[in-house]
């Protein structure tokens, strides 16, 4: 595999909320390889967005990095404090596509002006040169008649078109890493596929390393090289798309995949994960998923499992992979995943 572009080591992020401290990211380590597309999946509140926000210094003001390192090009981003330092990263090195295109554009500025702002900041383009580049970018993201469209305001664009504009803004920054924070969640289903396809094509065209944050496992299977599964502020399993989907090791990944509606049998109830995620205001002991796992081991309640290596690219945090563990096989339903093909 190629070079590591960004490396997270033992990252802990906390938030202070109403006088209490919430441990949002619990000792996460992650390597991002140049040119790959990594998907981060997990339920709401599992820390997907918070994790990526730390890469850009975009944590809300009540959040902070407690410990850990974020290494990027020899620098530790976790140490960055001032806006000046972050401005060398934001947009220029790492750009972001946000979830809701309806509200992510300034309603009072033309679409062209908003793309131009990024061009001016990161490529030093102005005037006619910038205009030409705006037109090029709009064409790139599949917006026809760019000369006219760039003079229009966001309200004259549909949701899908606005997301294209936001992608154009991200590209205008000329970033090395693109973070897509649930880029299609707010769009309707027919548009989702188009936007996914578009991001996929552009990321490959410009050789950008991409991180997708999503709940949508279908999206993951279509675009990602690797998948990281997050639960309660921790990565519980990471591997290539094939490995995570077809040979999952962590009970949470099993449960997550079992709840895919595609695996449902007609006439039977769909699978759901019982219980709720742990309260991150309290300290989590052992495997965070154990209380919801009917087959949890005793060890799961006592000590946090380390990462066990399944293959050079596949790791999972579960005591099941320890040699002393009893053999517990993944649910039968997951067998069907291979037949269904991509979820």
């Amino acid at each position: 595999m190629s070079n590591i572009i960004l490396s997270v080591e033992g990252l802990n992020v906390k938030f202070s909320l109403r006088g209490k401290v919430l441990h949002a990211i619990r000792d996460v380590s992650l390597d991002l390889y140049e040119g790959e597309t990594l998907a981060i999946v997990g339920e709401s509140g599992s820390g997907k967005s918070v994790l990526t926000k730390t890469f850009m210094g975009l944590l809300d003001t009540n959040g902070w990095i407690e410990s850990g390192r974020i290494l990027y090009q020899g620098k530790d981003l976790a140490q960055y404090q001032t806006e000046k330092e972050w401005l060398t990263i934001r947009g220029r090195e790492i750009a972001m596509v946000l979830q809701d295109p309806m509200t992510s554009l300034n309603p009072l500025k033309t679409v062209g002006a908003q793309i131009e702002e990024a061009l001016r900041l990161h490529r030093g383009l102005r005037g006619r040169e910038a205009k030409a580049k705006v037109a090029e970018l709009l064409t790139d993201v599949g917006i026809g008649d760019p000369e006219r469209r760039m003079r229009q305001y966001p309200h004259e664009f549909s949701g899908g078109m606005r997301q294209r504009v936001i992608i154009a803004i991200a590209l205008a920054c000329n970033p090395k890493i693109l973070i897509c924070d649930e880029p299609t969640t707010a769009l309707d289903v027919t548009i989702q596929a188009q936007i996914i396809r578009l991001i996929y094509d552009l990321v490959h065209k410009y050789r950008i390393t991409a991180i997708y944050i999503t709940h949508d496992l279908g999206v993951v299977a279509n675009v990602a090289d690797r998948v990281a599964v997050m639960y309660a502020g921790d990565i519980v399993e990471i591997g290539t798309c094939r490995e995570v989907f077809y040979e999952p090791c962590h009970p949470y990944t099993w449960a997550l995949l079992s709840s895919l509606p595609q695996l449902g049998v007609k006439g039977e109830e769909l699978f759901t994960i019982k219980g709720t995620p742990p309260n991150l205001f309290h300290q989590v002991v052992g495997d965070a998923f154990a209380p919801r796992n009917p087959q949890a081991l005793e060890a799961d309640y006592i000590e946090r499992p380390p990462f066990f290596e399944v293959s050079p690219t596949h790791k999972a945090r579960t005591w099941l992979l320890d040699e002393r563990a009893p053999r517990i096989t993944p649910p039968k339903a997951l067998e069907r995943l291979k037949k269904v093909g991509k979820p």
Partner: protein
Amino acid sequence: MAKYIFKRLGTSLLTLLIILTVVFVLVRQMPIEGYFDNFDKLDQAVIDARLNQLGLKDPILVQLKDFFVGLLHGDLGNSARYSVGVPITAIIANKAPLSITLGVISMAISLILGIPLGAAMAKSKSGFWDKFGTVFIVFISAVPSAVYYIYIQSFGSSLLGFPMLFNRDDWRTWILPIFSMSLGNIAYYAMWLRRYMVDEMNKDYVRLARAKGVKGSEITMRHVFRNSFVPMIQYIPTSLLYTVSGSIYIESLYSVPGMGGLLVDVITRQDNPMVQALVMIYSSIGIIGMILGDLLMVVIDPRISLARKESSR
């Protein structure tokens, strides 16, 4: 746009017509005693002659017709009791410019001070400026204005040596009344601007601007500030009107010969032609202010289109 303005002016004219008719009829329901200073001692004949002279004996519809016909000829009539026989246009032309000048200067100062204060409050949320501004706003809103007006006058004149009374030709006498007039608006603008700016700062597009690497100060200037001005701009023309017409107390405190207290004055004296004329003037300014406010919004916010429904969505 032109079509919209014409339409608005048309409906405004109708509104004005209704206001005038209602006011016209209402002032004529007042007891006739009010038209005389010494009603009890007068003969019935004298009273009748006087009422006849005022035109109050005609059927009300005839009076109304006469009024509107006069209006169409640009004739507001003469003052009946305030300064008897003087054309109303002359009275107003004498007083209005001063009030308007004071009002405009005070508005300008309110904007110049209120907007930076509001912006500084929003920027330094719960920092020094926010606390300072909050104290100021709470003080201005909670303490009756009459109280601090008097303090400003007495301290301003005794400690700072500014003259107590207004004199058109001495600029130093302008300072205290204008300052007093501005305080309320400064607090008002600061409060609303802070509120709208904090609203805007939490919006997604600000997050995106941050993510694309725009400096914080630039985000405030280029994105937040202008956007939070949209809901405020609509009220600025109307607020000018209130400043001009509402400075009754200040004008009397400093003996400013303006038209601040004029309306109240002529109503108590039952000077019907003056009441009608002033109501017409104030309503017109009010209506024009609202139209201007709406037009300003269109200029600043591209989403608002007055002429037609949104075409693509």
